């Protein structure tokens, strides 16, 4: 099979699964009106498929900071920090993240994907083991592959299963990196962090927690699951992204271990990627200040979460195991999921469609992402649309 034949096979598989007239993946967004509203084709739609948890993409403080950075430092850094130098804003953001987590060190990356790729591949290598949750994000899988370490999975959030796999490793558990997520992106559930910490201590392993979906969402000041559980000092490495609650693009890793700084010299994704633009850094610094003081935003976010989750639950939809800003509706077939996705779009609501093999356990998902910027009326409208569509989806 030639290289192009392989891509033809991908096109055929996609065609078999989804009709060609529907642009489910990479849906064209023709205009953006606010953090919750946009235009698709001629239709005004409600954003319910973005990860704008605190609704900060149009925060005046962030817009102003980004504009000022472009004016003073230009549109890009045009290279990596290793080769082209570290701007003051990048260094300041790292210090602000380290202060936020009361950690020794922080490294800022250009994307959240790169944060996991760089951290995992910099920490683990040939002869080491990475022990990852079965529902881990692709960036974790890819970081593990790049590391060259042996990759072993444990069943999602199953601590008996994790311990069994640690025990099998024997002395190698001491050169093992365990990786879990604060909130899992598919079903919106949390890692049982206290139990994970106990196991990593018992077996002498190292723990990396990805707070991509929990930063800004959990904890009094929005640190994530570490703050919600009071375990910030127990986790070795914390990664996260700027592209969700912080409304920009980029990623970070913080650690209590001073050795984190050495990743700058061994981690190829860090060394060989251009650093974030000055505007991105400036808007992220402004957003981080808003996030840290965003108690009211978190209260509004969780009110919206509980309202929509309980409404969908009462309607009889099968949902992820706990309320979270990621509310996944679990459907039996891709056809049901597609029908629900299309129906919601016809009601002016844009959500995410996830079909096998991307969704866990062979299911299909229609995934909603709730924001603090959604109004109570918008949540009611979404609930009503799900109510109307239920009859046709399950007939």
């Amino acid at each position, binding site marked *: 099979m030639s290289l192009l034949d392989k891509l033809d096979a991908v096109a055929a598989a996609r065609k078999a699964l989804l009709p060609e007239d529907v642009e489910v993946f990479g849906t064209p967004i023709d205009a953006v009106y606010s953090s919750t509203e946009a235009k698709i084709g001629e239709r005004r739609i409600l954003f319910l498929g973005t990860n704008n948890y605190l609704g900060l993409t149009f925060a005046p403080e962030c817009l102003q900071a980004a504009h000022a950075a472009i004016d003073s430092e230009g549109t890009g850094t045009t290279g990596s920090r290793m080769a082209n130098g570290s701007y003051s804003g990048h260094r300041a953001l790292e210090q602000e993240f380290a202060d936020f987590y009361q950690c020794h060190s922080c490294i800022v990356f250009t994307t959240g994907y790169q944060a996991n790729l760089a951290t995992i591949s910099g920490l683990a290598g040939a002869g080491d*083991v990475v022990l990852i949750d*079965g529902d881990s994000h692709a960036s974790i899988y890819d970081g593990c*592959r790049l590391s060259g370490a*042996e*990759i*072993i*999975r*444990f*069943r999602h959030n199953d601590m008996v*299963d994790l311990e*069994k*796999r640690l025990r*099998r*490793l024997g002395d190698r558990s001491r050169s093992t990196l365990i990786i879990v997520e604060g909130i899992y992106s598919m079903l919106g559930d949390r890692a049982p962090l206290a139990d994970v910490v106990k196991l990593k201590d018992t077996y002498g392993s190292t723990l990396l927690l990805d707070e991509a979906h929990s930063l800004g969402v959990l904890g009094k000041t929005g640190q994530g699951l570490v703050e919600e559980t009071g375990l910030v000092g127990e986790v070795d490495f914390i990664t996260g992204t700027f592209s969700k609650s912080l409304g920009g693009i980029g990623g970070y890793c913080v650690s209590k271990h001073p050795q984190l700084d050495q990743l700058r010299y061994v981690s190829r994704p860090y060394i060989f990627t251009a650093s974030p633009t000055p505007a991105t850094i400036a808007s992220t610094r402004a957003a981080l200040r808003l996030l840290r003081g965003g108690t009211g935003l978190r209260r509004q976010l969780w009110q919206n979460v509980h309202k929509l989750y309980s409404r969908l639950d009462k309607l009889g939809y099968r949902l992820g195991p706990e309320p979270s800003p990621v509310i996944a509706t679990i459907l039996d077939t891709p056809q049901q999921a597609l029908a629900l996705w299309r129906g919601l779009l016809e009601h002016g609501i844009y959500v995410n469609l996830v079909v*096998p*093999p991307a969704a866990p356990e*062979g299911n299909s998902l229609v995934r909603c992402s709730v924001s603090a910027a959604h109004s109570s009326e918008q949540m009611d409208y979404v609930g009503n649309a799900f109510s109307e569509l239920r009859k046709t989806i399950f007939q």
Partner: protein
Amino acid sequence: MASDYTDVLQKLCHHLKQFTGPDVEITPDTDLINQLAIDSVKLLNLIMEIEDEFDISVPINALADVQTVHELATLIHQIRTAK
């Protein structure tokens, strides 16, 4: 040694039955992806079952070269032997 491999093969075929109809014969040459339609996620879940069956760790990186039932049985046998 040969009997160990046979034991692995038998147990592996038992696990693979969940992916086939009752009348489908699984042989060492059976292709996991093309004949049994085991996608990447199903294969990873199968590996966790196999790890528990044989009380071993099977790194998923080692699956890159595995295409047939025989190749998977050989990998499991090698890991068991190295324990």
